[in-house]
């Protein structure tokens, strides 16, 4: 039995890896490459000095946001925990593994040497997530949908209110201008804002491009083609240098606003093209059916066409959302200290000169986790809407 198993393993190797001299050469080459990568890149990671991450964790997460106001950032995370928990509770009956692993991860973080405030908030967040998971079920199903959609739409206004603040310096939530925002906090705010704005603007541009009114069509087409013909870096520089010149000096917008305008303009144009593709997938007969029922054009768009377009476009939209998230890393070149900006700031500190690769690896890990969870969530939504399993009907 044993010898037979060994034999079959030997034959498997022979058949699949060493069947010809070319295959043998390829096998050896690949093994050599893998070994080299493992020896030179992966194994050294374990022996690296990762203290740079711990020392600069606050900087990486929030940039130069005042340390005594960090509870405001934690408050936003608590909001996300509560409604993240609710969203899981909406979609699953039992606690799903992903959800449990997130909670366990947060629990393990408690054993790292964080400040008392952080530990307290970690505990609160775990509790809020569980609370949200079970609390949402007390509502009828239609109210649940409303609560979840409303909560995620309000996330950004809530974040802006809490992070920016609204009182004078002595007050309970003093204003903190965008110059102090940085790190993951800034990256997240910028990508969420640009996703939230470029979605409706892109939709309007796409509808405008299909319009029968020549002027509107011309303006929308010109905007889309101009923006799409220029790299994002150029648009960021234009925003950075030209917007202040174009506006009166009293209205001098911060670098944050200028970057936002550039990124939103850029992604709106791409979003518009995505939507255009979605619109082209709807057969003309759907418009005719709506026309014969006397539905006006706006009603046809909202009731008949858009629901079908949006449903078909979820995969494309998600991939452009991840694109938006990664593209925000470019804002570091106009002096904003987002994740990448912070990493180069840390690298320029003589104390951490040798730890550059650790910082970059950590950034890569953060981006990977974010993008991977977005695409995981989109797979779930696609399955729930039945996009992957069955087509939306014959007609």
């Amino acid at each position, binding site marked *: 039995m044993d010898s037979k198993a060994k034999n079959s393993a030997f034959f498997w190797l022979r058949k699949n890896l060493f069947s010809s001299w070319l295959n043998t050469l390829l096998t050896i080459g690949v093994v050599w490459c893998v070994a080299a990568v493992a020896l030179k890149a992966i194994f050294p990671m374990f022996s690296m000095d990762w203290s740079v991450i711990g020392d600069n964790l606050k900087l990486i997460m929030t940039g130069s946001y005042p340390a005594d106001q960090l509870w405001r950032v934690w408050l936003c995370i608590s909001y996300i925990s509560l409604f993240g928990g609710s969203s899981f509770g909406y979609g699953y009956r039992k606690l799903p593994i992903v959800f449990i692993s997130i909670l366990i991860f947060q629990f393990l973080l408690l054993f790292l040497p964080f400040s008392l405030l952080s530990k307290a908030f970690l505990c609160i967040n775990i509790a809020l997530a569980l609370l949200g998971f079970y609390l949402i079920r007390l509502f009828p199903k239609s109210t649940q949908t409303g609560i979840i959609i409303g909560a995620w739409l309000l996330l950004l206004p809530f974040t802006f209110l809490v992070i920016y603040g609204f009182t004078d310096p002595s007050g309970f939530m003093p204003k903190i201008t965008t110059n102090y925002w940085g790190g993951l906090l800034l990256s997240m705010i910028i990508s969420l804002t640009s996703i939230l704005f470029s979605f409706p603007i892109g939709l309007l541009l796409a509808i405008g491009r299909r319009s029968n009114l020549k002027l509107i069509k011309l303006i929308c087409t010109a905007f889309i083609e101009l923006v799409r013909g220029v790299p994002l870096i150029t648009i960021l520089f234009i925003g950075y240098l030209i917007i202040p010149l174009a506006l009166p000096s009293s209205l001098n917008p911060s670098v944050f606003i200028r970057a936002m305008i550039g990124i939103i303009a850029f992604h709106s144009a791409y979003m518009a093209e995505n939507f255009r593709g979605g619109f082209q997938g709807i057969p003309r007969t759907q418009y005719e059916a709506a026309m*014969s029922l006397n539905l006006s054009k706006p009603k046809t768009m909202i009731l008949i066409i858009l629901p079908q377009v949006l449903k078909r476009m979820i995969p494309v939209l998600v991939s452009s959302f991840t694109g938006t998230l990664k593209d925000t890393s470019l804002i570091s070149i106009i002096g904003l200290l987002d994740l990448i900006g912070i990493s180069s700031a840390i690298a320029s500190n003589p104390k951490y000169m040798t730890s550059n690769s650790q910082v970059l690896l950590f950034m890569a890990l953060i981006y990977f986790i974010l993008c991977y969870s977005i695409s995981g969530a989109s797979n779930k939504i696609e399955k729930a809407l039945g996009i992957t399993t069955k087509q939306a009907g014959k007609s």
Partner: protein
Amino acid sequence: MTHEMNKELIIECENVHKWYSPEFEVLKGVSYNFYKGEVTVIIGPSGSGKSSFIRTINGLEEHQQGMIRVNGIELTHNVKSINAIRGKCGMVFQSFNLFPHLNVLSNITLAPIWVNRLSKKDAEQRAYELLERVGISNHALKYPGQLSGGEQQRVAIARSLAMDPQIMLFDEPTSALDPEMIKEVLDVMTELANSHMTLIVITHELGFARAVADHILFFDQGKIVETGTPEEFFGSPKTERTKLFLSQILHH
């Protein structure tokens, strides 16, 4: 001619021309009067302009010359006149054109709620009555993709009826159906005809035409070649073109 005097005129067409480009004229002067409560079947070879003709009546396509008047309202480019006419004409398409993202009930209630401003409750009650009438009330909550072609077409008929039209236009309603489903759709149409609704039907189902039609129009090359009652038309066709067409269809 005298018997037509006491009938109520509902659609008048006078010298209707339609072209996509000067070389491609699909309607070359069509004149015909449709009367209330009558069933008119339009037959003709493909490309003869019969489909363009009834799409023009509904304002789905524009005519370039001539006059169409529905229920006394002239069809112009004016949105108001088009909307008023569409409110009178229901249309059923060859490929059903149901809204795939809505269930059967919502497909039917959508326009009554959003165009005629009916309350949801009234619209749904009416929808169930209509589904009963076309014989598929047990499928109200299914989606179009879950229904057979015949069932989808009957939903499409119910969807048009929900707008309380005076005229129903059928554009080859059974051409996309499997043979065993054709009858269920034709039965619904026969029932409509018996309830004295004005129907204009493009079809190749000559049995249906013979049994139900009051008048038959034969279209060829953008013109009405021959008109008559089913007996006249099938019994003693006048023109050579009609004879040829009928012999081709009947021997097929």
